[in-house]
């Protein structure tokens, strides 16, 4: 089996955004996600979610196109008011076709 080159988009954000972000991913056509509870510090000092627990890191593997759209859309919606970071990287995925087509 040859792996297929796709993009892994990573969003690290306050936990209150968790459900919103996952809904958005589905809406735009991602086939899955993986979420990790993380801690973090960035340019905004204080974290309101402190009482709500740590940050969440959401990774989703998608086609390069979708990666671009996802990043733009999340940035557009959340950069103004929320504390988050978004980045993407290349990954070679087994059964890659499974993650390419929006469901």
């Amino acid at each position, binding site marked *: 089996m040859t792996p297929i080159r796709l993009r892994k988009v990573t969003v690290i954000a306050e936990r209150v955004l968790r459900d919103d972000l996952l809904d958005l991913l589905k809406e735009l056509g991602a086939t899955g996600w993986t979420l990790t509870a993380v801690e973090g510090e960035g340019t905004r000092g204080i974290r309101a979610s402190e*009482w709500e627990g740590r940050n969440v890191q959401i990774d989703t593997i998608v086609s390069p196109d979708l990666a671009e759209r996802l990043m733009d859309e999340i940035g557009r919606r959340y950069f103004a008011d929320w504390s988050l970071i978004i980045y993407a990287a290349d990954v070679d995925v087994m059964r890659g076709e499974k993650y390419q087509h929006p469901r």
Partner: protein
Amino acid sequence: MSLLAENLISPVVLCFALGIFARAIRSDLAIPEPIQQGLSIYLLLAIGLKGGAALAVEPLAALLLPAVLTLALGGITPVSAYGLMRRIGRLERADAAAVAAHYGSVSVVTFLAAGEAVKRAGLTAEGYLPAMVALLEVPGIVIALLFASRAGSGGESSGGNWKKALHEVVTGKSIVLLLGGLVIGWLCGPEKLTDVQPFFATAFKGALCLFMIDLGLAAGKRLRDARLAGLRLLVLGCLIPVLHGALGVFGAVLAGLSEGGAVIFGAMAGSASYIAAPAAVRVALPRANPAYYLTLALGITFPFNLALGIPLFQELATLFHAWL
């Protein structure tokens, strides 16, 4: 003065102090997050059960007057907090609204500490008060959102946020556990609760001590921010609980509550929530700066009430009771 010492030298208050101290010396002491969440689930459910068991033996009509009083306080306190934060605190609309939402609801731990103080003083309080805590959670956040939305500071999709924030409050775990406990306690009545009392009632005070250490650690972090918040906010963080607390005590005495009940009502009105409100506010008013509301609620007003506010409300309750 001896009332003050009496109030401060208790395991619950000293555990809070231990948390602050541990933070100050940069100790690695930390209550793991799941334990802290487990404790707050336990505390809220236990409070609800206790209140529900009390409701089960209370004629429901007796709740009417205190409920009206609670809603009145729930209407007045956020307006007053908003005004003070705008005028004296010089905060932006969104920030002032966010702070108002916190002062409009209740700090559950201050509520408990007031209950303890009342017990230590040899007084009793009405058993249905936990139901009032739940009642007081909602109006504060609604009024705060009204202030904010008038200014359009709720973000582009503020309509959606409105609904979301309300959902967040009403289905938030604090309310669900408190109300859930109330209903369960009320359905079961004191007798059927007997078997669970060793866990929920007898062990309560000790578990609260662990929770207080965690709160102390969190407040210790905020205390450092308090200096940055500036003198104005620091003063307001001490003034508002006195104002609102006095109002609460006064209203309660007027409504015919016991002296002990009046103290607890004072603590309810004078305290600022730091468990349920922050999450709802973060969703509804993302533009408001968390540094203001968290520092005020947890770093200033909570320790103030624990140390000075509650003894003051006790004095006031005695005073007002003698007067009226």
